[in-house]
């Protein structure tokens, strides 16, 4: 279902005309009885109408993962965007790397999908008062950030649209149609959501209690570094699939269960890299010390694999993410991107592994020009999808310094690259 939060002030059933031909098919009301006329008309038109209080919506920490609800509904999230600086309009905040500071709900969606794997994930967020410009771009990015993460944004309008759409305001209608186009695009490619998320690192934590901050921020900041990861939740053993991962980070300070410890050892011995906090170094002692190029870690061989044990306590997830990225290395990355500093990448492979999908969410307002992608593995064909364009554009590989690259035409907000081998 594609959900939409019906504004309380909209009492006219005639406003359902806005949804004609759109992918939105589920309307969320504060109160069904309070909007009876609209609800009746909506149901008659084939919409699903749900009352907000019945959704079990709440912040991530309050979600009941074992609930029988048909979907996981998480609220209190951030509006996806490049964070503007307090220094003034036009300035952009940068992280410690100088890369733009981006707010995204991607990690929340990924974690929720692991905790309740068979339920769709609905994300709730709306424009804050500090968001001065709420045009099409903001909404397309909001839709794309959720959809590329496999989730669904519960479309929530800002004041301008809430007032402008019933009045037939041209700008509001233009923005509205942009939202619908974006939703329609992702509905058309719904099969992508079922593709397997690929990662060069498994991030293993309970993501709760005393490990909530470090574990969750690690997910957030790994994405910010474009370090592709797989979520492994200790509290959900079924999620702890280590097969195919080059490395695993055990992010929690308390020891794993005997079963999980054995699983981690079995992962490292044949060639995996296990990264553990200082407190757990003794649990995975390894054999010989190996030179380690990353400050703050002791690297030891462990069978044919290795264990990197921190030599200091982790207190800053930003640096932990950087350390992990350096320990894992980029050699495992399935592709290299250029001119992609403000792009967030989502990489997945289809079940038969013959196709890979790179989704790029572009947070900058300007068009993304001269973005190039160098897949690590040979490929047979590549096609680029953009919102609003009907057919994908086939891309011809270009040989650059001995390897094949794909040079992407300029795009705004979002693109998907399907590469077939």
């Amino acid at each position, binding site marked *: 279902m594609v959900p939409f939060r019906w504004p309380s002030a909209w009492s006219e059933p005639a406003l359902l005309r806005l949804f004609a031909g759109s992918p939105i098919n589920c309307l969320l009301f504060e109160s069904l009885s309070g909007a009876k006329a609209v609800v009746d008309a909506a149901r008659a038109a084939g919409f699903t109408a749900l009352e907000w209080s019945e959704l079990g919506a709440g912040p991530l920490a309050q979600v009941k993962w074992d609930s029988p609800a048909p979907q996981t509904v998480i609220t209190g999230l951030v509006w996806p965007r490049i964070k503007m600086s307090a220094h003034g309009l036009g300035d952009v905040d940068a992280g*410690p*790397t*100088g890369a733009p500071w981006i707010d995204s709900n991607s990690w929340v969606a990924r974690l929720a999908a692991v905790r309740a794997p068979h339920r769709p994930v609905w994300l709730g967020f709306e424009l804050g008062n500090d968001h001065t410009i709420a045009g099409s771009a903001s909404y397309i990015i909001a839709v794309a950030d959720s959809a590329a993460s496999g989730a669904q944004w519960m479309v929530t309008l800002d004041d301008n649209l809430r007032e402008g759409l019933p009045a037939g305001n041209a700008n509001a209608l233009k923005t509205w149609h942009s939202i619908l186009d974006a939703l329609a695009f992702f509905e058309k490619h719904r099969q992508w959501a079922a593709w397997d998320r690929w990662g060069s690192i498994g991030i293993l934590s309970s993501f709760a209690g005393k490990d909530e901050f470090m574990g969750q921020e690690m997910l957030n900041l790994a994405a910010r570094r474009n370090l592709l990861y797989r979520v492994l939740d200790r509290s959900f053993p079924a999620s702890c699939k280590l097969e195919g991962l080059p490395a695993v980070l055990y992010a929690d300070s308390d020891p794993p269960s005997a079963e999980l410890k054995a699983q981690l050892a079995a992962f490292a011995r044949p060639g995996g890299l296990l990264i553990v906090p200082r407190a757990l170094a003794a649990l995975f002692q390894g054999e010989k010390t190996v*030179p380690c*190029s*990353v*400050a*703050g870690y002791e690297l030891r061989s462990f069978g044919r694999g290795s264990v990197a044990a921190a030599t200091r306590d982790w207190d800053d997830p930003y*640096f932990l993410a*950087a350390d992990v*990225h*350096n320990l894992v*290395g*980029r*050699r495992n990355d399935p592709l*290299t*991107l*250029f*001119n*992609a*500093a403000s792009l967030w990448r989502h990489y997945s492979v289809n079940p038969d592994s013959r196709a890979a999908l790179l989704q790029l969410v572009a947070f900058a307002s300007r068009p993304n020009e*001269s973005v*190039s992608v*160098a897949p690590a593995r040979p490929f047979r064909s590549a096609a680029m999808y953009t919102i609003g364009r009907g057919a994908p554009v086939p891309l011809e590989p*270009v040989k*650059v*310094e001995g*390897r094949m*690259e794909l*040079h992407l035409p300029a795009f705004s907000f979002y693109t998907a690259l399907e590469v077939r081998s």
Partner: protein
Amino acid sequence: MRNIQTPGCGMTRRSLLANAGMAALGAGLLPRVGKAVEAPSTPVALARCRSYDAELLPTLTKMFDQMGGLGRLVKDKTVAAKVNLTGNPDSRLGFIPIGCTTWTHPAVIAATVHLLGRAGARRIRILESPWQSAEPVQEFMTAAGWNSGMFTSAAANVEFENTNFLGYGKRYIRFPVPHGGLLFPAFDLNHSYADCDVFVSIGKMKEHQTAGITLSMKNCFGITPCTIYGDGAPEDEPGLVPLGGRFPIHAGSRQPSKCSPPEIDLKSPRQGGYRVPRCVADLVAARPVHLAIIDGIESQTGGEGIGLDTRHVTPHVLVAGTNTVCVDAVGTAVMGFDPMADRGTAPFEFCDSTLRLAEELGVGTRDLKRIEVIGERIADVVFDYRKAGFPIQRTVPAHDWLATPPRKG
């Protein structure tokens, strides 16, 4: 901190005084500051090279032979080669690989490494201080699409080290600037700059917003560890990892961590155009360059980073020699500028000339009349960067306006 020129501080390492026909590097033997006419001169090899393909290796081979061969410089020695990998590895000017615009091209690095190995170098360390990062240099290269294997397979015993922090060392090594220095009296650097017999600077032929040009000398600006000299360096001791760039050196907005010597004159101008050239001159005096190479085969105009004013260009030249000032003087002339120019004249419209300052420190001469150029004639290979670039209005770099007043005390 060990002091590289102070006996009795655990310094049993090899002599820094060898090689390259450099003027004696001991402080007592250096010319006095201001005695530019006495600054040493060594021949500079200048070659045309149209691409990074097959012609590169024979061209470099010939250039090194013209200089008297690498063997006398590096045989049985540990060589440290500082390359120029400035900025973000995944940034490109359009679709052009970064080695063709802002970075030293990997083929130039690999060919140099190969020839150093062939000349008998015992160990070759490739050094860089990747921007705001403690990540391994190989990782940084991988992010640019490079395969670091092309360097490790080019010669035996090739290593990498990120010198933006302590790296593999146990402590920073102090390098005093002869005669006391222009901006800093001494620098604390990663051990790799001391644990070598021969120091090579492989720069890129570029203009620079703050220093006018960046060649083999300015390349050495990046040997300063940001754990001490960068934004976010702790007040007292070096940081574990770099948290920022070298804005404090540009702007004088703060002093290095207190464990390291502060700048000489806290009331000196807080302008990048004043400070960066002096810092660079101090660095090449404190950590002498034994072999300087400039990659000018392909490059960009308009500055060091990628921006609206940058344009990909193909000067098709290589410059090499054993005196970094002489090499940069020739490189400056190849770019269409007068190496004798100073503040107010291109390319130093808003800065002092690093060439002049290094010359006055006695590092080498910038006077082309005193430099023997071997191979091509400068006039035959001049590539005018200003004519080739976009017609841009040159103004004082923005960050100079942002510079904060000097600290008191």
